[in-house]
């Protein structure tokens, strides 16, 4: 089961590696990202960021969905990561057992962001991304924004409301 699906444009990094895996008590991390699955250099940096004792799997989004639906993983707490909202939506629509979706850091590295909308200090949404986020918020899974565990969970629906 997915203990948390996190959208983070940096995938695994300091906040995620040390802070969140501890907080969520997840022995396994799955990075669901088409680019990372095809890029050895990205894979290497992600492995480096993985804390000792945690298992890491890097797969493209479609293969990751198969991993999440694998019966062997039913009792394993998995921390899943995507670097954009569209990928998270695809996973949420195709995987049953997800405890919560944390839209944490989005858009900081998007080059073509002239028409981006800012939902919070770390959420910059392109129109496509915003459409995916709205769809995500209608699913029957808690969707929230929480950068580090010390921050309060802000429901995405309230950020969307404020942005209008």
């Amino acid at each position, binding site marked *: 089961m997915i203990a948390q699906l996190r959208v983070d444009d940096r995938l695994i990094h300091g906040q995620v590696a040390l802070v969140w895996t501890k907080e969520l008590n997840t022995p396994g991390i799955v990075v669901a990202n088409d680019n990372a699955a095809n890029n050895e250099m990205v894979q*290497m940096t992600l492995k480096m960021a993985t804390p000792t004792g945690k298992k890491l799997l890097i797969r493209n989004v479609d293969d990751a969905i198969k991993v999440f639906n694998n019966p062997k993983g039913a009792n394993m707490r998995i921390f899943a990561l995507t670097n954009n909202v569209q990928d998270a939506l695809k996973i949420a629509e195709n995987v049953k057992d997800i405890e919560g979706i944390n839209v944490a850091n989005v858009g900081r590295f998007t080059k073509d962001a002239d028409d981006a909308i800012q939902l919070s200090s770390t959420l910059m949404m392109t129109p496509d991304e915003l459409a995916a986020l709205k769809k995500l918020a209608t699913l029957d899974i808690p969707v929230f924004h929480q950068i580090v565990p010390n921050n309060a969970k802000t429901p995405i629906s309230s950020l969307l409301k404020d942005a209008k």
Partner: protein
Amino acid sequence: MTDILIASHGHFASGLQSSLEILTGMGNKVKVIDAYVDDSDYTPQIEEFIKSAKRPAVIFTDLKGGSVNQKVMLEAADQKDIFIVTQMNLAIIMSVLLDSEPLTKEHLQDLIVQSQVELLEIPQSQQDQEKETVNDFFE
């Protein structure tokens, strides 16, 4: 959570605090001393920490043998359960800050071993990298 003081020559200590805030949101949980950025005496801040910190506490300093480290050692000399860790880096401070086990000398030593600077070798080809499998993952 362990009470922590970070002391350095210049803004290294408050710089580490800024990094801790970004990474953990817990920057305000540590005390810092940026020594020699003005001509004030920073000894009272060390005394204040030692007086108020719950035990065991940790004081991190930037440089072994440096004057900041010397001052800390003199102030903490007659104290029980204050650990002084020098040659500090971000990794060791985060480890102690996020740790949930009781802080013993042995445990602190383990955290320090895991937080060393290292020389990274970048693998030149896929052969150098182990490919992880789904079966390994679910084992």
